[in-house]
């Protein structure tokens, strides 16, 4: 099975102190460290596991600049066979629909059976997967927590629904799926692999290579524009219990039950 995983590089939330810049319209990016968007990493792991079972290859693609090659190499160290960078000055400032348009251009150049995305970007809004599927006229399923390959170009997929229950469906290939974290345990990518992946070639494609009309991408085509960041006002402090240990335990259980936290 030929699988394409769309990935994105984001500021690593566990290793940064995210602060707003003085203008208040973006976060302070000077000393940020970036990593692959976590759900995307799960998607790559899932693709690798599928290929390990049924054969085929895994390609990872991102829209961005040279800086974003870092995550492609990381996923290649993880086991992805190909990494592709879609980059063009004209792509700068694209909104979700623009990104989906660029990706669609790339997908149409290849012959992919399955396209995976993370459930959402940590700094995004879970838009691209669905739009990409619509543009390609492929079926789309989201929030997946398991994938099983069936005979006859079909997959059995499931997602978690309210109350921890599972909803199981079948979907025809080719399709676009968005992957939830927890679907697997992504393998560790060691420094040795990352170093070895430094010398791997990463082909780049621009707007003309992808036959993407310039009028459909970039800042000028974006119909969604970020106008502000807002930091919520700190709410009231926590409730402090001041009894003995036994009393507090009882009180906590009572409060949890009253708020629906305990059944």
């Amino acid at each position: 099975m030929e699988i394409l995983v769309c990935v994105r590089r984001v500021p690593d939330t566990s290793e940064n102190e995210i602060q707003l810049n003085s203008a208040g319209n973006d976060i302070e990016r000077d000393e940020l460290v970036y990593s692959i968007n976590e759900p995307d990493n799960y998607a790559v792991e899932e693709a690798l596991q599928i290929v390990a079972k049924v054969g085929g290859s895994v390609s990872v693609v991102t829209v961005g600049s040279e800086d974003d090659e870092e995550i492609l190499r990381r996923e290649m160290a993880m086991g992805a066979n190909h990494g592709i960078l879609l980059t063009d000055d004209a792509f700068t400032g694209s909104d979700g629909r623009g990104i989906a348009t660029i990706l669609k251009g790339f997908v149409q150049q290849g012959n992919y059976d399955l396209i995976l995305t993370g459930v959402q970007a940590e700094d995004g809004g879970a838009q691209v997967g669905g739009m990409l599927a619509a543009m390609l006229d492929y079926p789309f399923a989201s929030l997946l927590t398991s994938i099983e390959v069936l005979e006859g170009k079909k997959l059995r997929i499931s997602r978690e629904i309210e109350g921890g229950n599972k909803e199981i469906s079948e979907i025809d290939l080719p399709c676009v799926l968005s992957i939830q974290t927890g679907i697997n345990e992504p393998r560790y990518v060691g420094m040795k692999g990352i170093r070895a992946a430094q010398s791997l070639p990463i082909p780049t494609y621009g707007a003309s290579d992808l036959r993407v009309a310039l009028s459909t991408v970039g800042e000028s085509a974006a119909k969604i524009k970020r106008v502000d960041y807002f930091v919520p006002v700190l709410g009231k402090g926590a409730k402090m219990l001041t009894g003995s240990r036994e009393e507090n335990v009882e009180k906590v259980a009572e409060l949890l039950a009253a708020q629906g936290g305990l059944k």
Partner: protein
Amino acid sequence: MHGIQITASLTSWLTQGYGLFLFIHLLGAASFAYIVARRLVPLLRAERDLRFDRPLARMGKVLKFWMGQWKHPRYKTAGLMHILIFAGFILLAMRAFTVLIVGVSQNFVMPGLSGEAGHVYEVLTDYAATVVFLCMVFAIVRRVVFKPARYEVPAKFGKAHKADAIFLLVLIAILMVADSGFEAAKAAAQMQAGEIAEFSAALSLPWLLKMLFVSFPVSTLGKLYFSGYLLHEITFYFLLCYRPFGIQFHVETSLFNVYFSKLDKNRLKPVRWGISDEHLGQVKSFGVKTFEDFTWKHMLDFYSCADCGRCSDNCPANAAGRPLSPRFITIKARDYAFQHYPMFGHSGNGRALVGNIYSEDEIWSCTTCGACEAECPLLVEYIDKIVDLRRGLIDDGNVPQSLQKPLKALESRGNPYGKMEKKRAEWTTAKDFQQPCPVKTLNQTNGADRLFFVDSITSYDNRMQSIARATARILDHVGEDFGILGTLEKDSGHEVRRFGEETLFMVLRDHNTEAIKAAGVQRIVTADPHAYNALKHDYTGVPPVEHISQLIAREVKSGKIKFNPVAGSDKVYTYHDPCYLGRHNQVYDDPREVLDAIPGLRRVEMKRSRDRSFCCGGGGLMLFYEPKEEERIGVKRVRMAAEAGANVIVTACPFCLANIEDAIKVAGLEGKMAAIDLAELTEQQIARAETGVPACPLEPSSTQPDMQERAIARR
């Protein structure tokens, strides 16, 4: 019957058996040679291990640990017994060969053992056989009646080895009886003939048998002589050929295992022997994944294990109920070797060890404290094997999720917490500290004599920052000219390496090495034993490094540090040896001397101290790992301190302090037990001159003593 005839008739018994004896000799020797050759097959397929250097140092090891049985007295009963058996075997070895040869050449006498020397040797061997026999009886009783807990085999690790152990003991006992009976029959016959019988040592086993046999008719004696010989010969060869299938193979392998044991105990095994760091990139697979990835010496370790259980008896992970028992790391590998390298047929199958004979949790459970290696009488190595197995897991991406985040953070931020680099020196800016005790950050313009290498936990952890500040104050007090690397310092990588991420360790090491060299310092000091061990043994080309406890002890002796008496007479202190300061670097006395120099400080020792110290639960990445365990290792340690009658645990390692302070809470001993770092305690007790001068002068005080000295010299 005439005397000469009697002995001649005995000899004729042996002569009659000539053909049989020769046949058994040849069969026994050929079988043993074949078995050993088959046992060598995996060793020849194993990884390299460069252990053929420094023969003198290796002979020294043999004299101390093999001939001298150095580790044995650590277990009094079993140890003493083993020393007696070992001594007996050494004495009896030559006799055994003489007896074997006598069967096919009746008048053979071992060169050098004719005449008087021979008599003395015979008396010695008579007693040796007796002692060995008694030891066997005692050992069997011990196994059957007293059942020491450390010999038990938990169900998860396989079947009990007790029957096999007892069978082997019985065989040795039979060997001793057969040998003695053979000798006694001859002596009894000689006595009957009125000859001067070969002297047998009073009350020894041969002597007792001789007394029993003396009234027997000569024909019976002849039969006893013959059957004694035959039983001895058969038992000898059976044992020889049976031992390579179980726990007694060490009788043959121990000499080699000790000779080839690790000489540089403090250095971790390289990924591949004979391949330098620069060429490591070309090595396809790291670590041990299949049995054949072990080095030949590590396989010899597996063969040599005597199953005595001392390693696991001392292992903190095992004590806490983690799924690791070092003994079974060895036993399971040996069982694997026996199964997949059988006596006949196809060898090896190349299956992954982890997931087959080992579990991932088992391999991640080790704290690398070294208690197992400190105990093993045969010098079996464990840490290198665990690290090699981890290297294999890392290489395949099999890393617990709990460790992936800190490893990734170490890669991008140089510390496992994912904190910003610029905050690494934030501990120096604490209120009430920065002003009296400014700590300089070293760079091109700002040099110093000594680098204080802080490392990650002491830099970033709120509680441990107190150790950093205490260390800085002490350095300042004794007039050291020191500084820190600040944002340029990255994690020492000590645990990164021990968790098997060799390439990431190399990146951290190279970064720090460059930063340290650029700082132009002469010496390094640290309050973290893990950083100390890394800088001392894992890094090359950096200035000499000291642990703060060594520096304090020296300055106590020099008189620069004087202590105020401790407050509170109800406090009883005990010192907990951090593994990487104590066992791995033999710094046991300095911290104790410092404590004993504090007036009024009452100190007790825990039962498990010094090289038998009990790990706190593990440092570095082990703080992130979520082990499966019944009780925290640290809680066990805190209980040991309470048992010793202490209510203050002093340690000299930030990880120990973190684990022990947590364990005090978990054990519900808050308020009854406290923990403090040696640097903190020192700083708290230092007697400062009452001159109104601030504790830490604003100016770099370190230059003052130097200038004074120079001024004195000029005068």
